[in-house]
């Protein structure tokens, strides 16, 4: 087993969540899936914040405050993202992000 669970473990967990979220964003063809990836990324970041708040005394409470802000922002962003996805669905009859290739150069 690892030695004492310290800051680094939580950072690793945050990293894992972040990477999963990034990979999910990169891989999912469903727009909602991409959204889920975004949530994962934000959560990973939040875990980092809170871990630092816990283990770093200069950062004592600010980390949690920032995590709160992030959660609020995540909510707002999720609402917008969903509205966009719905619009997309209305226009294209599908939520496959691969169909949104108008930016193809």
């Amino acid at each position: 087993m690892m030695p004492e669970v310290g800051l680094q473990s939580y950072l690793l967990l945050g990293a894992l969540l972040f990477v999963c979220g990034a990979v999910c964003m990169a891989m999912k063809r469903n727009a909602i899936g991409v959204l889920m990836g975004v949530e994962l990324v934000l959560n990973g970041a939040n875990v980092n914040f809170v871990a630092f708040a816990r283990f770093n005394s200069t950062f004592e409470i600010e980390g949690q405050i920032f995590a709160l802000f992030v959660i609020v922002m995540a909510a707002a962003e999720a609402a917008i993202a969903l509205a966009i996805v719905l619009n997309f669905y209305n226009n294209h009859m599908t939520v496959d992000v691969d169909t949104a290739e108008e930016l193809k150069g």
Partner: protein
Amino acid sequence: MDVQTALFWILAGLTGLSAIAVVVTQNIVRSAAWLLFTLGGVAGIYFLLGADFVGATQLIVYVGGILVLVVFGVMLTAQGPFVTMKTSAAEWAISLVVGLLLFSVITLAAVNAPWPQDAHHSEDMESAETSQNSVKLGAAFLGIKEITPKKDLTGFPMGKTPPERKQVAYLLPFEIVSVHLLVVLIGAAYLARAKRRRGMPT
């Protein structure tokens, strides 16, 4: 192993596995379900880290709000049962490689950086009364100082001392963020208003 370590491993394992499952699952509804577990696990992590207010907020907002929203979205944009959007193996491979790369980079950074350690933390974590997380949050919003005395700080890199801190009041940013949220929601409502469908998907 003490409880915290065990709890950490259980929660971290749950969160991690769920996160991976979110990525791996083909079915979108199942992805949402796994996301639920991930978010729940993260909330647990928060509790473990002594940020109970944040954890509670996580559960309320994220799980109870955002995830529901996601599920609504899944339902609203439901395709036929035989339409699955598969990613090709090549893309799997590339994404995996990139993900591993990113993970390794972050891990390297995290492991090699000399984070300053604080020996103070374990006492506050005894009980919910002593942690007083919400109180601290509220005080921080209002700008009341409460900082750890200097003498208890250890592990600063290269003999540096923490700078003199001025306590900042976080109430204004909080209000701004909430107003921002309001605006965003209005916008989202506008964006998602009912429009005529352009015909049936082929």
